[in-house]
């Protein structure tokens, strides 16, 4: 008995050798499974990233001109007609409408939130019957070319996060901007010019700043960074050869420099070196390409009247629109304008008049100019700000002036050309101009739609950074079919 007992015990004893052998073999077996079925264990890969440099499917728009109205123009004074506000002028904003929407620090101390009707008259225009305020007669005349979205909404309530959200798809963080993504995904048509250009202009109204974060390349190659054209006499600084240097000199210098840089790259392998070489080459070609673009002395009378006489003065919105048309016509993929001064917290009436004067004629002129050159079908033009404005007054509501605070829940934006549906008004807000009733379009949806018009599936234009596949639309966004022709 004892013998059997001992035998049993002996057999039950698992030695270290035994354990390690069997465990090792077991792990090996699992590892073999991992080797054979590599992809199973890497975690769900989203659809394969798209191939770069060419559209995934036939695009409607080949280039974009984004007329960004910085500071947030009030939708209640531009394209969203709310007569109820005029009727209820001075009445308190009902809590049922506000539904606990957060206030900014600027109005949180207000005791009252009196509704304010717009001092400007609205009328319907064109075959689409779109409502446009009296401030924008030129845009009103071309409503049948425009596609209005009245139900844009965002999450940010202040300028910096809202601007960053619009341009990069997230409220914080140094992510690539829209233009950088376009440059990354589609490349440049014309390699003699940057594929992403930024033009700034200052309005006379209350201005908010713009910062280079808004046209940054983020974690993408710095080739995709937006190139700001300065608003002085020399739009691209230091482009011309210095005294005594001619083109051949410059060429020789660049060739030698490229040799050094190439050797350096072989040594160090920093991809920025290659970018640098590319940028020098492009600058060299830009010396030929840029001067004829920025020379406004030969514009015809007809063009000057189309955009307004401001278009000859560098640094104005009209001049930027004209330059944008020329850049876009020459193959620049993404041209972005920023016109500051729409932040009408106070003195709304006066400021809106000045701002509208700056942009109305030129924006409409840009569209007409592209149309008469047969380019409107392939150029997408966008006009809009970073959020809307409140239907209640900020500060004292007087007979002569009122102001509006920031309002993220609904605002208006229009698009034209590039495959959008002309003569359309998309979405509906409530009669208080506070909430969205039908067809909301989030900023992600907006990005998805723009990418779609350019021939890119927004879920597939990704870039792996720090282990995560980032994309412009982050983790959301649906293409809005209702605005696509």
């Amino acid at each position, binding site marked *: 008995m004892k013998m059997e007992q001992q035998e049993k015990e002996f057999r039950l004893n698992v030695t270290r050798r035994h354990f390690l052998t069997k465990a090792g073999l077991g792990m090996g077996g699992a590892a073999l499974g991992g080797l054979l079925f590599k992809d199973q264990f890497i975690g769900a890969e989203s659809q394969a990233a*798209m*191939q770069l440099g*060419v*559209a*995934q*499917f*036939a*695009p409607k728009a080949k280039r974009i001109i984004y007329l960004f109205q910085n500071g947030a123009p009030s939708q209640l004074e531009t394209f969203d007609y709310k007569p109820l506000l005029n009727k209820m002028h001075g009445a308190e904003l009902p809590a049922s409408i506000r539904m606990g929407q957060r206030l900014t620090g600027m109005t949180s101390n207000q005791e009252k939130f009196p509704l304010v009707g717009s001092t400007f008259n609205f009328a319907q225009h064109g075959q689409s019957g779109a409502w446009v305020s009296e401030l924008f007669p030129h845009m009103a005349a071309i409503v049948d070319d425009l596609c209005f979205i009245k139900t844009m909404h965002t999450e940010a309530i202040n300028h910096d996060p809202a601007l960053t959200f619009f341009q990069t798809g997230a409220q914080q963080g140094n992510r690539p901007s829209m233009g950088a993504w376009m440059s990354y995904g589609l490349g440049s*048509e*014309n*390699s*003699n010019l940057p594929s992403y250009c930024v033009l700034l202009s200052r309005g006379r109204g209350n201005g908010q700043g713009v910062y280079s974060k808004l046209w940054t390349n983020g974690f993408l190659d710095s080739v995709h960074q937006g190139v700001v054209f300065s608003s002085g006499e020399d739009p691209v600084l230091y482009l011309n050869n210095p005294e005594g240097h001619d083109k051949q000199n410059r060429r020789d210098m660049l060739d030698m420099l490229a040799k050094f840089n190439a050797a350096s790259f072989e040594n160090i392998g920093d991809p920025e070196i290659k970018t640098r070489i590319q940028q020098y080459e492009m600058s060299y*070609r830009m010396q*030929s*390409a840029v001067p*004829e673009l920025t020379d*406004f*002395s030969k514009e*015809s*009378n*007809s063009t*000057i*009247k*189309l955009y*307004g*006489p*401001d278009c*000859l*003065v560098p640094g104005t919105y009209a001049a930027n629109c004209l330059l944008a048309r020329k850049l876009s*016509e*020459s*193959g620049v993929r993404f041209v972005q304008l920023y016109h500051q001064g729409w932040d009408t917290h106070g003195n709304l009436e006066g400021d809106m008049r000045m701002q509208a004067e700056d942009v109305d004629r030129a924006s409409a*002129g840009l569209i*007409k*100019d592209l*149309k*008469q*050159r*047969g380019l409107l079908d392939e150029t997408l033009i966008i006009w809009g700000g970073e959020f809307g404005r409140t239907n209640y007054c900020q500060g004292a509501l007087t007979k002569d002036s009122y102001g509006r605070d920031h309002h993220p829940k609904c605002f208006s934006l229009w698009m034209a050309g590039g495959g959008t549906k002309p003569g359309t008004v998309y979405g509906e807000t409530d009669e208080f101009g506070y909430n969205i009733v039908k067809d909301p379009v989030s900023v992600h949806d907006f990005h998805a739609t723009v990418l*779609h018009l350019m*021939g890119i*599936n927004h879920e597939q234009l990704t870039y792996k950074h720090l282990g995560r596949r980032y994309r412009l639309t982050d983790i959301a966004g649906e*293409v809005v*079919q209702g605005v*696509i022709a």
Partner: protein
Amino acid sequence: MMKQNQLHVHIIGSLLMLLQALMLVLCIVSLNDIPWWLKQLGHLHPVLLHLPIAFIFLLLPLSFIFKKDSDQERLFISYFLHYTALFATITALLGLLSASSNEYDPDILLKHKWLSISTALLSHLLIYIFQISHRKRSLWITAVSTTVTVMMVGSHFGGSLTHGEDYLNFDKEEKNTKAFMPLSDSTLIYQDLVQTVLINKCIECHNEKKMKGGLNLNSYASFQKGGKTGAAFAVGDPDQSLFIQRALLNIDDNKHMPPKGKMQLTQEELFLFKEWTKRNADTLLQFHQIDLKDTLHAILSKMVEVKSIENTAKVYPFSKAVDDNIQSLNSPFRRIMPVDINSPALVVKFYLKEKFSLQLLEECSPIAKQVIEINLSSMPADDAVFKHLSMFENLEKLNLNGTMISGKQLSSLKSNKHLSSIKLANTAVRANEIETLGTLPSLQSVYLWNSQVTSDEITLLQKKYSSIKWDIGYIPDEKELLKLTPPSTANAEKMILDPGELVQLKHPLPGAQIKYTTDGSVPDSSNGMIYTKPFNISGLTQINAIAVSDGWMSSNPSNFTYFLKGAKVDSAVLIHRPADRYKSNGSVALIDFNKGITTNLNLNWLGFRDETMKAGFYFSQPAVIKQAVLSIADNTYSYVFPPEKIIIKGGSNKSNLKVIGSFSPIQPKAQRNAGIIPITVQLIPGLYPFIEVEAINLQRLPPWHPGKKEKGWVFVDEVFFY
């Protein structure tokens, strides 16, 4: 014990002989009319065949481990061999019974049959070889290897019979189900739709290599011919069509097709079959022949994936160009891009005028067929371009905006039959030249802004060729008068001029005239001098200027303040101290000719509040001084006001001074926009080696100001002496 074993072996051995003999007989006999119950028995063949395969394989390891001298082991192996042979034989017999149907490829069947029979025979032989190879291992090993090999080859052919020849094919490609091509008008119902279903769900068992039931679905003819049970379908009569009947049977019915366990037909696919058979099983039937209201139309639209917007790819009648050609032709001045990654269509664009030549266009001939769009806008292309355009037979869009064509050769574009859009803005084309294009069949739009075509002519063209859009573009309203922008100066920032330096005014509108004044009055149609060339100033000069031009409203006035550099001051000294924050670089700020700007009072400005501004200026070569000009910052919002009084003293040195001038500037009555104000103080003319300037800041801000009763600031950035 031994005897029992021997008996056991003996029985097996005898049975084996019997069956082997039977097997050999059945080999050569025709097996077409065997009783049905035997046929059913033959169906056990696929079940039983695993045994002889396993046993024969096992022989290999067993051979290497048995000990020659162990009787027990030898007995065991003897048993093993007997059973192996038995199973092999029974399997072979069953196989013979099931081989009768003409379901299988005869070639493979033959090979399988004879190899498998050989396996059975060999395994029988092994029993004896084992007994005699007691001392000769090599013989045994050879025999076993041969048997294993024959078995493997034979069973491979067997596998081919049931699973198809390429089952063991180690090809990387996986056979996926064939997808439906997007529906278009020309989709053939049989070839593109019915056949796709057959390929996905039926052809695995019903093809040329494997014809279950004798049915081969690879071609229409064999489909129609059918198999053992008869024709697969009856033209025009779905109810009588065998393939539909089989599909409609209960799933548990043996005859139901596709067999239970395999992918079944969907309702839509079945409907498709029925409808197609009903329509005479026509191979020429196309999608556009099906009426929109027909249920089949709806079913097919549902079955074939609704084209997502992404798939509305235009199908072109040409294939992709050779990649190398595209690569070699691509350059920064001639860009060739595909419309999208899958499309064969190409777009060609030209950049940089100075690099352009018609040869660049000519060189595109290798890819001419694929080009659908050419963009020559702003290129110096003249009429010679047209002869190079005829090779682009699929050209749809042509952009000649801003080129140097005259229009005379436009008619040659008629050979581009697919041309849908022509852009001729900014060219010299005339109406009669463009009219010839009105007859182009696919032309949809023509852009003629800023050409020689008048709007009246466009109206006529639009009427005549109404299917084409003739675009004249923007024509400015003659009666609309726009206001000019104000004039600017050549160097806006520079406000301090050296003696002899000229003031230059300019305006961007060609032909605009500038009128200006220097006396502070506002120029208009009657007042002011016409600017012709840059001019001199003396001392402090304030210029107001407007721009005028025919057909435009006069601009708002712009104003500029210029300071001429005055008498040379050798050095300055601060007698009173400025506020610590606004001390710039000390007294030298007042004479360094660096102007401050209104928005930044920290740079180049000296700010005084607690003490008045008091500074002294030394002149080593005194000239006659008649006036002093102080450049003052004015920013009422920030409590910066003009001084309430300026007192200037002069003399031969610091302690020997007398008042030579004083002035009290006008104070603002309300808040105003920030600016820089020059204040002139007239002095008793004289030679003063030392001058002291005191600007007394407002001791009490005016009552209208929120900071009333407080002291104001005074900021000075420069002092000039003339």
